[in-house]
Every structure is written in structure tokens, then in C-alpha cells.
């Protein structure tokens, strides 16, 4: 056994030695501009990662076909963070030190985005976030981190407008999944509701993936709130609605906080229980932004499925990246950062301009919307000027349908 150990020991470290000295292959970066995009391509969040990746690629192809940037093509290097913040970090390491990207993009899950942003700031590589929404990511004063999408505290702005003008609920229950997205989102919603004078009867988190939400929903039914606000990913959202229907819970309004509630899969899985459910949404194809409807139609043509706000964020991010690289004086991190800071671009997602407000820095402010599932379609119902269908309020009791 001793001899075996020795051989192994030598073997291991010689392998290491040769592998690592030989390993680092110099990259040929003259012909393309490399941008690193970190998304969950496998794992639980893979569905969203896929929509975003497809959207990035769609936009990239259009940009490169039109000549690229300064005569060069942009190349997107996708890295899979598998939905875990530590893997996200490994992905950043690889993109920055091995692939020598000029900037980073992507960032889907809040924990992963937070982790990537910390590393990007430390390594002084510009990072354009397009989905990770926990507020604190842009509250750190990091000047290399920019966020295109609204923070989760702004998701419910349109919904709040609706509450103030139309619904005027008196009591509410907030249900959320125990993740960074859900936890921080619910805190913000609770604050906003209290500011509107709405009493929050119940605010409770759950481990996502639960089979049985009844214990939680029974408490909701007992409290009989006017409004039920839920922050969940798609499968939990479906189950919560189905079980609410079973328990015959009838508030005046069910509102989802985006994420799972706006996906076509939500309706597919929740069926009748999804009918009439509202949700905060960050984008609908009917918005008067140039290219928005074309993007929606082209995506459906190319991939056979419908896209939604995550895809729009990714498409817009690519538009911003191309614009930034065009304006940057050089591809050094500081010049790219400056170009990013000076962005003022209309995209399919809205006008992207990074400002600082409240505690946040480098945050773009885009309006949010209230949508509702009506007869199996996701319609925009508020604010009125961009509505595609009239809202249905109050909620029709389950038993009467």
C-alpha cells in the first residue's frame, strides 16, 4: 500500500503540473469581441435560461448580420451557472481570466446575480444585469454593476396603482417562496401595501417544491383577506392556485408577483384555477416600443413557443451591449464601463438609461404593468392606456363558475 501511495502521489502532481502549464491556451481575440453571458442553462431554472439564451442569440444574429460593431462580430460566450451562486462564481472566473471577455451579461437568479456582481465589481469588469431583481444588488454602490430590469420592489407598481384607483383592498395576505427573490420581494410588497394603508394579515414563506400548500392556504382562508399576493415560480404558483380553488378561497383579487405567473406553463398547469389571476409583469408584446411585437412574433416563429418578459429583457440587453460596444472608446474595462454609464437607448423592453435614485446606483427605471389571465390569454389590463383587454374585478368565486 505504501508503494501504491507514493506512485499515486507523484502521479497526481505530475499530472497537475503538466496539465496546468500546458493547459492555458492563448486565445485569439482579434477577430471577434467576446462578451460573457451567465445563465441557468441546466437545473431548475433552465426554462428561463433557455428563453433568455434564445433571445440573446436572436438579437446577436440580427446585430452581426447588420455588420457587427466597428467591423467586428460580437461573440457571446454562454456559461451555465446551474442555478447555484458558487457555480456562477466559477463561471465568472472562467469568463474573465480564461476567455478574456470585455464585459459580462445575464444574471437570472437573484442569489447568483448577487454573487456574480460582487465578483465583477472586484475584478472591475462591467456587468449588465438583465433579470436578477433583488433590490440589494444595485444598492451596494458598485460602479461596475448596471441593471437593466427593475428591482423587485418596483414589480408591483402597476398593481399598486390598480389597488389605489380601482380595487381599494383593506386587507392582504402575502405568500412567498423562501429564496432571495421571494424573501426580498415579499418584504418590499409588505412595505408598499402598508404605505397604501392596507393591513397585511399574513406574510409567510414556504420551501419551494412543496406538495401540499393547504396548511398555508387554510390560514389564508381563515383570515379572509381582500387581496392575496403571491411570489412564486411556475409550479408552486400552479399548485397554490389549484389548491386555492379546492379550498374555495375567494378574495377579491389574486395577484402574482411576476416570475412563474406570467409563463404559459402556469396556465397549462393550473388550468381553470388560473382564470382571472392577475400578475405584475414587466413587459407585454403590445407595448409601443419599437420592435417589441416583431420580437414576439419572430421568437414564436423561430422557436415555436411564446416569449415573455425574461426573453424581452435578454433581447434588450443584447441591444444595449451592442450599443455600448459601438460607443466605447476602446474595449478596456473602464472605457466599456463609461460607455455603459452613458447609455440612453430605446429597446424592445423600453428606454434604458442608468440613473441613481434612492439607495440604488446604475439602475434603469422602466414602468411595470398589471396583466390578467382572461380566457387562457395573458392580457395587459393596467395602466389603461396600454391595456389590451378590460380587467375582470372582483374575482369570480370558484363554485359559481
Amino acid at each position: 500500500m505504501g508503494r501504491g501511495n507514493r506512485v499515486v502521489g507523484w502521479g497526481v502532481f505530475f499530472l497537475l503540473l503538466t496539465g496546468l502549464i500546458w493547459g492555458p491556451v492563448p486565445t485569439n481575440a482579434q477577430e471577434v469581441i467576446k462578451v460573457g453571458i451567465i445563465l441557468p442553462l441546466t437545473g431548475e431554472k433552465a426554462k428561463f435560461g433557455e428563453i433568455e439564451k434564445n433571445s440573446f442569440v436572436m438579437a446577436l444574429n440580427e446585430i452581426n448580420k447588420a455588420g457587427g460593431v466597428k467591423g467586428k462580430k460580437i461573440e457571446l460566450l454562454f456559461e451555465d451557472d446551474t442555478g447555484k451562486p458558487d457555480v456562477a462564481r466559477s463561471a465568472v472566473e472562467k469568463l474573465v481570466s480564461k476567455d478574456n471577455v470585455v464585459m459580462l451579461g445575464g444574471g437570472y437568479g437573484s442569489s447568483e446575480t448577487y454573487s456574480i456582481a460582487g465578483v465583477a465589481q472586484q475584478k472591475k469588469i462591467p456587468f449588465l444585469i438583465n433579470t436578477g431583481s433583488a433590490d440589494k444588488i444595485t444598492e451596494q454602490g458598485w460602479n461596475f454593476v448596471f441593471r437593466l430590469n427593475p428591482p423587485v420592489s418596483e414589480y408591483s407598481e402597476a398593481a399598486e396603482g390598480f389597488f389605489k384607483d380601482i380595487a381599494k383592498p383593506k386587507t392582504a395576505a402575502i405568500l412567498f417562496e423562501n429564496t432571495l427573490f421571494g424573501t426580498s420581494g415579499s418584504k418590499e410588497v409588505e412595505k408598499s401595501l402598508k404605505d397604501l394603508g392596507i393591513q397585511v394579515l399574513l406574510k409567510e414563506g414556504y420551501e419551494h417544491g412543496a406538495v401540499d400548500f393547504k396548511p398555508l392556504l387554510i390560514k389564508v382562508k381563515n383570515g379572509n383577506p381582500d387581496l392575496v399576493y403571491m411570489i412564486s415560480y411556475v409550479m408552486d404558483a400552479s399548485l397554490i392556485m389549484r389548491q386555492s380553488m379546492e379550498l374555495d378561497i375567494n378574495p377579491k383579487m389574486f395577484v402574482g408577483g411576476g416570475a412563474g405567473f406570467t409563463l404559459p406553463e402556469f396556465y397549462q398547469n393550473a388550468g381553470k384555477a388560473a382564470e382571472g389571476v392577475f400578475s405584475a409583469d414587466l413587459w407585454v408584446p403590445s407595448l409601443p416600443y419599437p420592435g417589441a411585437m416583431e420580437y414576439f412574433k419572430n421568437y414564436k416563429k423561430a422557436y415555436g413557443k411564446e416569449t415573455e418578459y425574461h426573453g424581452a429583457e435578454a433581447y434588450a440587453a443584447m441591444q444595449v451591449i451592442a450599443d455600448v460596444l459601438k460607443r466605447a472608446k476602446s474595449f478596456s474595462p473602464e472605457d466599456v464601463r463609461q460607455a455603459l454609464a452613458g447609455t440612453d437607448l430605446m429597446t424592445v423592453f423600453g428606454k434604458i438609461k442608468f440613473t441613481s435614485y434612492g439607495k440604488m446606483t446604475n439602475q434603469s427605471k422602466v414602468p411595470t404593468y398589471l396583466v390578467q389571465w382572461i380566457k387562457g390569454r395573458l392580457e395587459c389590463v393596467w395602466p389603461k392606456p396600454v391595456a389590451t383587454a378590460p380587467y375582470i374585478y372582483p374575482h369570480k368565486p370558484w363554485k359559481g363558475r
Partner: protein
Amino acid sequence: MLVFVQTIVAGILIGGLYALIGIGMTLIMGVMGIINLAHGQIMMVSMYLTYVCFNTFGMDPYLSLVVTMPALFFISFYIGKYLLVPLIGRDSILPENQVLMTVGIAICLTETMRFIFTSNYQSVRTGYSNKAFYLGDISFNFPLAVAFLIAIGITVALFFFLMKTDIGRAIRATAQDKDAAVLMGINQQRITYATYGLGAALTAAAGSLLLPIYYLFPDLGGPFTLKAFVITILGGMGSTVGAILGGLTLGIAESLGATYISMGYKDAVGMVIFLLVLIFIPGGLKRFTKI
């Protein structure tokens, strides 16, 4: 008061399903002495099979029991034969090799399903998926209630099998004393394989019953394996009645915990019970029953 009753009802219904998952594992652990960390994954495979039956053949999940149970019986039979039984009695430093082998099997099963079906969440929507019936103000989830009844039916059938048939008695004999059983002429190997298959078939049934009310993705196995363990330990290894009691206890405890402590701690309830039983009631609830 209403909240309390509704909570208990919810707990009992899900407890019935848990019990079915637990019976499968307790049989395997009792007879083979194998700790099967791939238990939840077997259920997951059965759910995919049910899903395929539903989508391709239009077979109702309850009907597909006749497909999934035998299918998983055979799959597990061969897994047991080629991967697990060779390890019993093999000389190696760590006796727990077989547990770790099941970890490897679990990973392979999960990844194979992921490869075939992708990580996407799938679900089946039957006409009765969302139905509930009401007794007064208390709602009973229809599919869960059906699952509960079927679980009872399967358990009763199992009892007959174990008590009255020859193979059943051979299984019980092997569980009680392997060597004596061999001396009595029982083909111990065949019984071992058969038990593994039987345990898997029961778990497969639980999967088919669960699909209408939950959803499906490759990684779903893990939490259910843990629950199966809690139930097995709670009820006592090898005891079917114990598994039933254990399943119901876990279901009710989780339900109460979720309502009165918080939903976030629901899973912790199971873990705490697990630890407490392990430490203070070794041998489980079966101590208090006769079977």
C-alpha cells in the same frame, strides 16, 4: 376549530400517500437490510412512466398502476440482482458500500430521466385533478382521497399476500431470520430479489397516485426518499402496520407544523421527528403494535 379539523384532514390524506411510499421502503430495509437511497428516484421513474402512458396512450394515471407497478418491479429486480446483491457479503473496508451504491443508482436514474425528458416541469391534467368534495365546510381533495383509498386497498392486499401465500410467508421468514429461512429450504436469493421488486412496485404505485396532484421533474426523488426514511424509522423497519402509522403520523405532524409553526419549517418537522425517534424510540412505533 375549523382550521384545526381541515389541517388534520389534509394531513391524513397526504399521510396515506406517504404510507404507501414508506411501506415499500420498510419491506426492503426489513428483508434485505438494504438502505435504499434511490427510493424516491424509483417513484420518479414510475411517475415518468405514468406521464408517458397518459400522454401517449391516454391512460388515466389510476389505470396506469397496472403498467407502472410491474414495470418498476422488473427494473428494480434487475438493479437489485446486478448491482446490489453482489455487494452483500463482499469484503470491503466500509460495510456501507451498498448504501453508497444506491446513491450512485439514484444519480444515474435521475440523469437518465433528465436526458430523456429534460429538466422541464411536466404535469398531467385529468378531469378530476382539481376536484374537491365537501363534508360541511371541510374540503377533501378528490385525487388525494382516491389515492388514500387505493393505498389502503394495496395495503390490505399486501397483508393477504404476506400472511396467506407461500411466497409471502417466505418473505416474512427471511425478514425474521435469514439463516433459519435458508435452512428451511427457502431460496433466499430469489426472495431477496422479489422483495426488492415488490417494494419498488409499491413505491411505483405511490408515484402514479401522486402525479395528478403534484408535478414531475427529474430531481423530485430526493425529498421523498427522506420522507420514506422518516416513516420507516418511525414505524419500525419491516413493519407494514408501522409504516402506515408512520406515514399518517408524518402527514399530520407536517400539516400541524405548517399551520401552527410556519410553512417554512414544514420539512424540519419531519427531520426533528426522525431524530427524536432514532434517539429515543429505537425500533419505532412497531414496538407498540404486535405485527
